[in-house]
């Protein structure tokens, strides 16, 4: 990895962590949800599972040797919680990504940055890293916490650890690629708009498709199984390469200053 890109990344991270008002909500909300949502899932399983389960076709065909509540937890965790936990860190990191170049423009620091020996590639990679690393770290934390919370609540309620760790953590493989794709797009948008507000507005439109993931899963449009994930990972990897290359080729450093 290019050392100058890492210098930009470290600088941006220092800026983010210089203000508690920026980083606290960014981390607190996903981490809070990683405690809350697993508990809610088990709560629903205990009190609502029979009525909900009868309406979800997948549940009926699931492993019938397990109690209905446990089968519900397995289904709901993989198909709803996991996609939600994949998208939340992306949302929060998009705040940094939207600010990446647009913030430099607004604060009039872009001028100095583009006068340095940084190449377009180093500058873009540095900016992407500054959002990508926190996003991925947050994803890992959120998945880890929610896994243990879910297992703990499940054992306490049903004396059975509902989640298969392989099924849960394999979904996490998609997190870096989803984060990278979203963040790269937002960083590129940020370089081409006038200010942070404009970048954030466009960003909120760009991340909309990711919100649809849990719904698509519930409606059986997509199914979070192994083959789906392999295709997803390959598709995301190709898209990432295309988007980042496009960003570097079309980067107009003069546009940041003008």
């Amino acid at each position: 990895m290019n050392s100058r890109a890492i210098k930009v990344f470290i600088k941006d991270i220092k800026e983010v962590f210089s203000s508690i008002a920026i980083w606290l909500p960014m981390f607190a909300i996903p981490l809070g949800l990683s405690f809350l949502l697993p508990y809610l899932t088990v709560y629903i399983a205990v009190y609502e599972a029979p009525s909900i389960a009868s309406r979800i076709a997948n549940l009926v065909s699931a492993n019938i040797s397990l109690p209905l509540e446990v089968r519900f937890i397995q289904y709901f965790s993989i198909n709803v919680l996991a996609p939600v936990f994949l998208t939340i860190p992306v949302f929060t990191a998009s705040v940094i990504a939207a600010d990446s170049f647009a913030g430099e423009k607004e604060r009039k620091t872009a001028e100095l940055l583009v006068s340095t020996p940084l190449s377009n590639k180093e500058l873009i990679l540095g900016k992407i890293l500054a959002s990508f690393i926190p996003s991925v770290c947050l994803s890992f934390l959120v998945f880890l916490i929610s896994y243990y919370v879910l297992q703990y609540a499940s054992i306490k309620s049903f004396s059975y650890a509902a989640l298969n760790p392989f099924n849960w953590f394999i979904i996490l493989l998609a997190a870096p690629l989803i984060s990278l794709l979203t963040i790269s797009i937002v960083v590129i948008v940020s370089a081409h708009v006038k200010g942070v507000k404009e970048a954030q507005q466009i960003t909120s439109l760009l991340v909309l498709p990711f919100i649809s993931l849990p719904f698509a899963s519930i409606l059986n449009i997509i199914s979070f199984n192994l083959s789906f994930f392999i295709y997803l990972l390959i598709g995301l990897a190709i898209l990432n390469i295309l988007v980042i290359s496009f960003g570097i080729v079309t980067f107009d450093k003069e546009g940041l200053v003008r």
Partner: protein
Amino acid sequence: MINLSIVDIKELTKIINNKIILEDITLRIDGNTVILGRNGAGKSTLLKCIAGIYKAESGSVRVFDKDPYTSKEVREHIGYMPDYYSLYDDLSVTDNLNFFRSLYKESLEDKQIRSIIEKLELNKYLNLKVGQLSRGTKQKASFIRAIQIKPKLMLLDEPTAFLDPISANTLRDIIDSYCRANRSTYIYVTQRVEEVSLMDADIVVIENGRVKRRVKREDLSRSLEDSFDIRLAKPISDNLIVTLKKADYIEHIKKISDRVIRVKLSSYKSIKRLIGLIVDNNYVISSISSIYDLLDDSDE
């Protein structure tokens, strides 16, 4: 043998938001240069083209025979100080300096940077966030950011705009001694005509996006050898006249009016000392007659 210029600009035209900012500029810069012009003349845009921030719409800009917009090797040797301080408000002065220093291959030694920091009395602000500093202190930090990378070419856009006269003098002295010691060159943009006399540099006057005139330092110096008038911002006291008469480099001094004195120096090189002496006595110089002629309406 081809004699390469430090900066070689040919037929440069720069259009921003459909407005011509620079038009057909052809300019070779081989030594220290002051770019002088009024607000909106195009000085800062020209400097940004030389810094590799703006690209030329037509014509060319070469610095050390390379295009600074595309060549990061050239930008390694350019220390650019914009008119706005452009540092990160949420980071400390030290973090700002370290970040920018880390992007360049070369830099001054730590003790040299510390010495400049001490001369500009920035020590006590190093651990404060830039956002907490006054405009003048930010400008000093911005200057250190530019000089610390040991540039072969310094591009300074109104570097003393927010400084008190004493700090401004110190900063100009640092520029001068740095360039002499490191065989570096500076291009100094200003709209304050009196600064011209303080810099040992050629002068390029820009007006409406064009080069209006070029004056070699020697030619300016010759004009300064004759008597010239200095207008001060407040009434001149007898004490100031007595103080100035004691200076051995002043051949003759006469009070022309309440705020104007006519001075003849033994050598034009003493102009810097004279201005320093006036400023040290808490006077602000409004104008120096023969230098102000640079911005008059007549073309060369």
